[in-house]
């Protein structure tokens, strides 16, 4: 896979794709689709605010908020001081006041200064207040590798948050899902961690602005197959579809399920699929140990034990810190590594 670069501020003409928000089906990149979804949310509810570092005139380092500061102004699109705990902590205060803050964490590896506010405060205020103080805060996190960047810029920290009660965690894999899921996340009265697979920011796809399709917390079969089930989320879905394509050329039929929601996980389509195929491979860019994939594997083993013809297999990054980018293609699960696992599962 080629290393894609962040487009420069002058590479696009700005708000063309979003200015009029024409309904119907448009072809958008995921970055533009999220931008359009954020714009819809800002238009729909004056309590929606965007907060983050460099999200104002610059439009964010990935340009996801491009044009929104110019349209909505300083009080709706806030360039904050450079302090992640401060951003999330003040977002909590704003939510207590009745706002619906949407926070951008600039890169996956920079979410940890805010970890305390997210896990000990954001996730618990509703419980602590016995239901009187909801926390409708969305935290957008560009995450994952394949962008050739430096340390702390390519990580997949979603399991920490999926492990935390009180949070909801989702990750879109396509522009269409991104457009709708960001709006559903903002509409939720619970805190939502919204993981954006940054290697998928730029490929374009259809976005139907009239038909949302799948609910926020539903998983979905994105390719039908009969020989084995592949499950993944975010950028990994594209890798799984690529693997299924290759396998089809070799006469194997693989089903692909897009998790979409990591907390809660919608097991219905997964268990149903495994009951038909008898084999499950779970893939992720994150470390495999104590991961979302571990949870899916354990739960499917509980719920579909008699349908399984082979052990559930995980294909993950290695349990080492993300390496220098020169090694990322060997570090991250590829279609070939997924197919190697498929071979092992089919050998039983």
């Amino acid at each position, binding site marked *: 896979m080629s290393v894609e670069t962040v487009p420069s501020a002058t590479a696009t003409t700005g708000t063309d794709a979003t200015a009029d928000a024409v309904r119907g089906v448009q072809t958008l990149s995921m970055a533009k689709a999220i931008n359009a979804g954020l714009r819809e949310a800002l238009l729909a509810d004056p309590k929606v605010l965007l907060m983050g570092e460099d999200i104002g005139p610059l439009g964010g380092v990935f340009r996801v908020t491009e044009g929104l500061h110019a349209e909505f102004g300083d009080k709706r699109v806030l360039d904050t001081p450079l*302090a992640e705990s401060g951003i999330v*902590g003040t977002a909590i*205060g704003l939510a*207590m006041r009745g706002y619906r803050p949407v926070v951008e964490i600039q890169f996956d590896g920079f979410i940890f200064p805010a970890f305390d506010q997210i896990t000990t405060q954001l996730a618990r205020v509703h419980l602590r207040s016995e239901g*009187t103080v909801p926390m409708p805060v969305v935290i957008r996190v560009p995450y994952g590798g394949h962008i050739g960047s430096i340390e702390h810029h390519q990580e997949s920290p979603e399991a920490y948050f999926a492990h935390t009660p009180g949070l909801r965690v989702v990750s879109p894999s396509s522009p269409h899902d991104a457009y709708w899921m960001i709006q559903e996340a903002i509409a939720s009265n619970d805190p939502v961690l919204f993981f954006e697979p940054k290697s998928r920011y730029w490929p374009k796809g259809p976005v139907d602005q009239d038909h949302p399709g799948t609910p926020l917390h539903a998983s979905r079969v994105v390719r039908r197959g009969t020989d084995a089930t592949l499950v993944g989320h975010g950028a990994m879905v594209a890798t799984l579809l690529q693997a299924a394509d290759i396998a089809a050329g070799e006469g194997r039929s693989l089903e692909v399920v897009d998790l979409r929601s990591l907390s809660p996980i919608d097991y219905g389509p997964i268990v149903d699929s495994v009951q038909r195929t008898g084999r499950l491979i779970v893939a992720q860019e994150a470390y495999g140990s104590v991961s979302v994939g571990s949870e899916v594997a354990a739960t499917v083993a509980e719920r579909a034990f008699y349908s399984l013809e082979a052990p559930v297999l995980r294909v993950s990054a290695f349990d080492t810190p993300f390496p220098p980018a020169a090694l990322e293609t060997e570090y991250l699960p590829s279609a070939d590594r997924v197919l190697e696992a498929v071979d092992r599962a089919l050998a039983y």
Partner: protein
Amino acid sequence: MAAPSRDFTAPTLQLLTPDGELRPTPEAEAYLPLVEALSDETLEQFYRDMLISRRVDVTGANLQRQGQLALWVPSHGQEAAQVGSGRASRPQDHIFPSYREHVVGMIRGLDPVKIMNLLRGVTLGGWDPAENGNFHLYTLVLASQTLHATGYAMGLQFDGDTATGDPDTDAAVLVYFGDGSTSQGDASEALVFASSYRTPQVFFVQNNQWAISVPVSRQSRSPISLRGGGFGMPGIRIDGNDVLVSYAVTRQALEEARAGDGPSFIEAVTYRMGAHTTADDPTKYRTDDEVEYWRQRDPITRYRAWLEARGASAAFFEEAEAEATDVAADVRARLLDATAPPRSAIFEHVYSEPHPLVEAQAAWLEAYENSFEGEGQ
């Protein structure tokens, strides 16, 4: 070339001397009119607040010793800092406490039994700030509430509910934290955000000299009040055992905040006469001489001396004693009536919207517990 100064000092504002004389320090003189404007009734209210607070505090400690509370967090010695600042707030203001501000909560209308239920292991908080004087929930992770307060104050600004020029409706935020908490990164981040957005907010540090067993000198080598200026807001150091200066300085800072002049930082120098919590043994880390020094500066004793000198009747003090005794007895009786919540409370309110995992686990626990019905009889 002269070496840069490493001598950091700040004046400590005081209106009432430890002997109970109204004799303002030079920097405090400007605040005197705020006190002179108070009615006898209000001045007596300060005394009753402090006395009730101390009686409830003793009740809390006793209940813990009797096994009725898991923990008690004493406020003994800090009554003036809390009563003065708490009484300086207006009804429309919002208070963000740490976890020792029992008397501020009571001033804002919170039933102290609710605080005790938290320390009894019956709730995790359990009050609605909107129905309890805008007194927000206790926050046990130190300094995290400073950011919530700043965000809330930003919201007041965005809503236009402050700085309209009407002090009866313009709102401000008052946030409490301690000398130990000032070392937390969140405290500094809150000061940065507050200064940056010029929030209508007062940061009120109770410097009670000890963060459990660690002295304030480990947290700061300069007066903590100096941090205000470093972040771009006034920093004022007051005698936290003087209820009058605590009231006046906080009142002025809150009025400036609600007028749109930006945030302020107040350090109230006080002393935690008791333990950090009932799990602590202060004799292991501080001397009797030090405790005695502060006992001589007791906030209630000095205020009583001043009230007596200006003519408060013996009957007033007797009534205040009786009231404090009654309140403490009532708190004790009602606390002992508190029962454990139903097991469904484990699951309720974790999410505000349906969550299949939590719902399945709630159903499982119910079925599991019910499976034992009729056994062991």
